[in-house]
């Protein structure tokens, strides 16, 4: 049984990312279940931000960054923008625009679309299937959506409400059928609990009966071993 006062005593160090792995996991598992601790953590995170800002403003490095740094940033950012445009150019099919628009509206209402970058799946309405995932175990507030094209090998997972994991762990998606589970990939969530994953299923998505997300080591697992956090099926 987790002692609440013990967890509360660790929140400041959690905000600093100064906890050892076992205590990090204790706090991480506790937070989704305790609004009091989440509020306390928010105040410590705000404090950590102030310290970071104060330190940044007080720092006097011997020299500024070299001019080439800025140019590399702009060049790389431009390349990122070009890649996004290329995805749009490849996937768009105007004949399916109406159905795609309806799906986009639904995804936007579910707050999914803000971090889905590839619109390929938006364009192909035929064979599109949406699967809702609900939180399991200690993650009852989490949820996710999978959108797959059953005529293609592409899909996308979007999740919300999962806690950020330590550096040695990842969330892993599983595609299940006939008692077997195939990995759909590894992902992380951002500070706001949002995460997404582009899914590839070389044999297509037809026949999969269920999906789940578990917590696994950073390099992934051959089969689901860690705690289940999301599950659902078509």
């Amino acid at each position, binding site marked *: 049984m987790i002692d609440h006062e013990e967890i509360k005593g660790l929140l*400041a160090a959690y905000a600093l990312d100064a906890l050892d792995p076992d205590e990090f996991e204790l706090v991480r598992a506790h937070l989704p279940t305790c609004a009091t601790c989440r509020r306390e953590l928010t105040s410590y995170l705000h404090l950590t931000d102030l310290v970071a800002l104060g330190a940044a403003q007080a720092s006097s490095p011997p020299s500024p960054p070299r001019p080439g740094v800025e140019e590399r940033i702009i060049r790389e950012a431009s390349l990122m923008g070009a890649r996004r445009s290329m995805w749009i150019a490849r996937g768009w099919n105007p004949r399916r625009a109406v159905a795609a628009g309806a799906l986009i509206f639904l995804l936007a209402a579910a707050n999914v679309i803000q971090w889905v970058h590839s619109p390929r799946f938006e364009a192909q309405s035929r064979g599109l299937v949406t699967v809702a995932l609900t939180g399991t175990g200690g993650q009852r507030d989490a949820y996710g959506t999978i959108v797959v094209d059953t005529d293609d090998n592409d899909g996308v997972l979007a999740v919300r409400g999962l806690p950020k994991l330590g550096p040695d762990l990842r969330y892993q998606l599983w595609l299940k059928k006939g008692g077997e589970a195939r990995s759909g990939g590894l992902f992380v969530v951002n500070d706001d609990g949002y995460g997404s994953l582009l899914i590839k299923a070389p044999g297509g998505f037809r026949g999969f009966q269920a999906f789940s997300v578990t917590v696994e080591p950073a390099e992934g697992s051959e089969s689901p071993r860690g705690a289940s956090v999301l599950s659902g099926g078509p």
Partner: protein
Amino acid sequence: MPHEATDDTELIRRMARGETHALRELYARHARLVYGLAWRILLDNEAAEEICQDVFLRAWEKADTYRSEKAQVRTWLARIARNRAIDHLRRRGSHEARARDVWEEMRNAAASAHPDPAAPVEASQLRERVSHAILSLPPEQREALSRAFFQGETHQQIATATGEPLGTVKSRIRAAMLRLRELLKDDGDER
């Protein structure tokens, strides 16, 4: 398009729309802050440049997820910079053999530097308040906090490095943060 009157939040919105000149302007405004913090943690110009690049590219990539009600842009950037620099330090696997009183180092550096006339007054005031608050902590609390904040050390690593019991280290970090929270409670950087 002129950006002199454009606030940081608007720059982020423009970055989310793919406008690289907004990114360039953001860099012009905050590169020194980001680079400075990374350098203070890593003490390595090249590594600090790498972190600086990483931070602004991350800001570019995540511009559409930035929420102004959670933190100001400069705070968001400082947070990313600290996290990235600590990740880099941990991957590098090196820790200072001796404790650094980073806050004393910065106070000494600031005392000998020329004031920056372009720095916003509120930024200088925040820096002074944070610095004053941290320097008011007992030395052992300040050391534990510095090790955690600037060197990315965990409780156990600090205990090992300082020879102090683990429980003592935990108490010192908690006490330091509680004290700072009390001293800086009126600093509403967040909206």
